[in-house]
């Protein structure tokens, strides 16, 4: 009973959403790409000059900030995984009646808004706070302070992007068939072995998704560096923001943005191939 009308149904369902994304995501990206090859200024106007040197300048001038951003994001993602996995596991398996509440507790901080949460960390981490005194005692604060150091920025990134790691991990863990875990134990595997050989591989798609959803936005972030960082903690996001909003050199800003996206896309492809899953593509196999 596949009439023409029925065959058009999926397109009808998809059209509104896809058109929205095409017009308000793809098209702006395209315009930005175009802008990156122009020269000029806001006052005088921009002319298309196929200025590929915008890209070479962007990479050579700001390689420090690029590398720094990837480094901070990488470390933050690692910590997010370290903290987020046990949390997701606890919510999925150990929380019983409180599962939904705990899940919501992960998302609820969003409602206080990003900025206030980051500023709250400023209060917690300021030079005279008890937290910092403890850290200083533990020799973890080489500059005699925590704020305005890389540590503070990484801590902020970890905190702010933790939910993006926890939610995909939780989804993957929840879908796990408990009988597989039981089977492992029936075969005399210890808890650690069960985890390592059963749970971890089966939740790999969730880990991939979590890592990507954390690393990528963190790499482009600038808020944490602005509030918690100092003069040597600027990330590439800060440069892009400054080029767009302060210096208003739109074509270089566009070139920087595109370079960032390109690097991320390359990393994405490599990572997905390496982790060996098509988790993000959402094929039906994922459900099994």
């Amino acid at each position: 009973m596949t009439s023409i009308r029925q065959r058009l149904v999926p397109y009808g369902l998809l059209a509104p959403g896809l058109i929205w994304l095409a017009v308000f995501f793809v098209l702006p990206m395209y315009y930005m790409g175009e802008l990156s090859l122009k020269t000029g200024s806001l006052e005088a106007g921009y002319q298309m000059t196929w200025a590929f040197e915008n890209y070479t300048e962007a990479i050579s001038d700001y390689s420090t900030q690029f590398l720094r951003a990837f480094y901070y994001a990488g470390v933050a993602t690692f910590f997010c995984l370290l903290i987020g996995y046990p949390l997701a596991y606890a919510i999925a398996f150990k929380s019983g009646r409180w599962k939904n509440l705990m899940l919501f507790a992960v998302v609820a901080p969003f409602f206080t808004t990003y900025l206030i949460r980051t500023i709250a960390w400023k209060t917690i981490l300021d030079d005279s706070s008890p937290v910092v005194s403890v850290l200083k005692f533990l020799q973890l604060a080489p500059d005699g302070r925590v704020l305005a150091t890389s540590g503070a920025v990484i801590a902020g990134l970890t905190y702010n992007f933790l939910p993006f790691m926890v939610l995909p991990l939780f989804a993957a863990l929840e879908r796990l068939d408990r009988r597989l875990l039981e089977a492992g134990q029936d075969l005399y595997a210890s808890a650690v072995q069960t985890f390592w050989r059963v749970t971890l591989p089966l939740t790999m798609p969730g880990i991939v998704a979590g890592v990507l959803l954390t690393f990528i936005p963190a790499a482009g972030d600038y808020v944490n560096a602005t509030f918690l960082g100092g003069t040597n903690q600027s990330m590439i996001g800060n440069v892009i923001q400054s080029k767009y909003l302060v210096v208003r050199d739109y074509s270089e800003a566009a070139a920087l943005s595109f370079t960032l996206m390109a690097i991320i896309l390359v990393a994405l492809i490599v990572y997905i191939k390496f982790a060996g899953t098509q988790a993000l593509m959402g094929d039906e196999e994922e459900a099994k």
Partner: protein
Amino acid sequence: MSKRTLKRTRLLVLSVLALAACMALVACGSDSGGLGGSDNSDVTVAEGGNPNGPLKIANWPLYIDNQTIKQFQQKTGIKTTYTEEVNDNNEFFGKVQPQLAQGDSGGRDIIVVTDWMAQKMYDLGYIQDIDHNELTTVFDNLIPSLESPSFDPDRSYSVPWQSGMTGLVVRTDLAPDVKSINDLFDPKYKGKVTLLTEMRDTVPLVMAADGIDPTEATTQDWLDAIDKIKENVDNGQIRRFTGNDYVQDMAKGDVVAAIGWSGDAVQAEADNPNIKYVQPEQGCSLWSDNMLIPVGAPNPAAAYEFMNYVYEPKNQAQITEYVNYVSPVKGVKEILMKKDPSIANNDLIFPSEEYTANCFNQVSPPGDEAEQQEVEQAFQDVVTG
């Protein structure tokens, strides 16, 4: 599997072709795109007369008290929308420029920006002239020192909102001997010093401290000063570059000395009495934020009403009491003397001539657009590490 690969390849080829077609199409017509460019038509004079319709003001945050707008609405019946959307001169410029370039103010009747940005916008044709005949209260009460600034000698388009000084803000208990900008680079304060992200505040002060007259500095002078700042960033002397938020760090003692604004110091003293504004030995930078009527303002007559209203001494006194910056209006000191003598006697709010003897008006880098951008970019590179 091969059928799938075939399908995928087809899809890929189609999308690449589609993209290429789009690019070609748009690239041809893109030079005249809406981004950039300015309209240098003749400058209009904002029309006065009877206010018709609402008033929309764009100002900096926390630059007005809680009562003035309400009272203005009650008195005049003009519905007023007051948005605190100006966080930074450059950011605001970037936001409004494309509309202003086409003669559209985005509904705003008054915008408030600092001297140099006011001049820049005016030169680009984005601001209307004001009619002095409509602003009798303003010009009757404007303090003499602000009557004829270098950027707008006849006050043909700007009316000061508040004025202020940029100098040193210091925790006098933790850094008692900071008296000059160069003291900020004293190694004993390493990591506890901040500078402002506003280039036109930071760099001229650094130049002045080395004996250069900022009003006559060359592009190379600016770049040299920026290099000096960079050295101090690299060796960890400067903790960070800030907007107004240096005061928070100072209240906590994370920062002991900074380049900062007079109004902040007055307000911060309430939090911590040891935070004081210190006039640098080589002088401070004087600036004001100005009310401007942009092109395309829907209700300039209402704008005139508002300007006159806030220039009445008793209304201004209310604002000054809250904002704690230098008031551009005569007669405010006397009113506050009765109400709150501590404010009236405060040198930072009502500075005497001798207090500001060494001060210079805020300056911009010299030269044409390209040279200015070179300096701006050099400074930005230091700020964004």
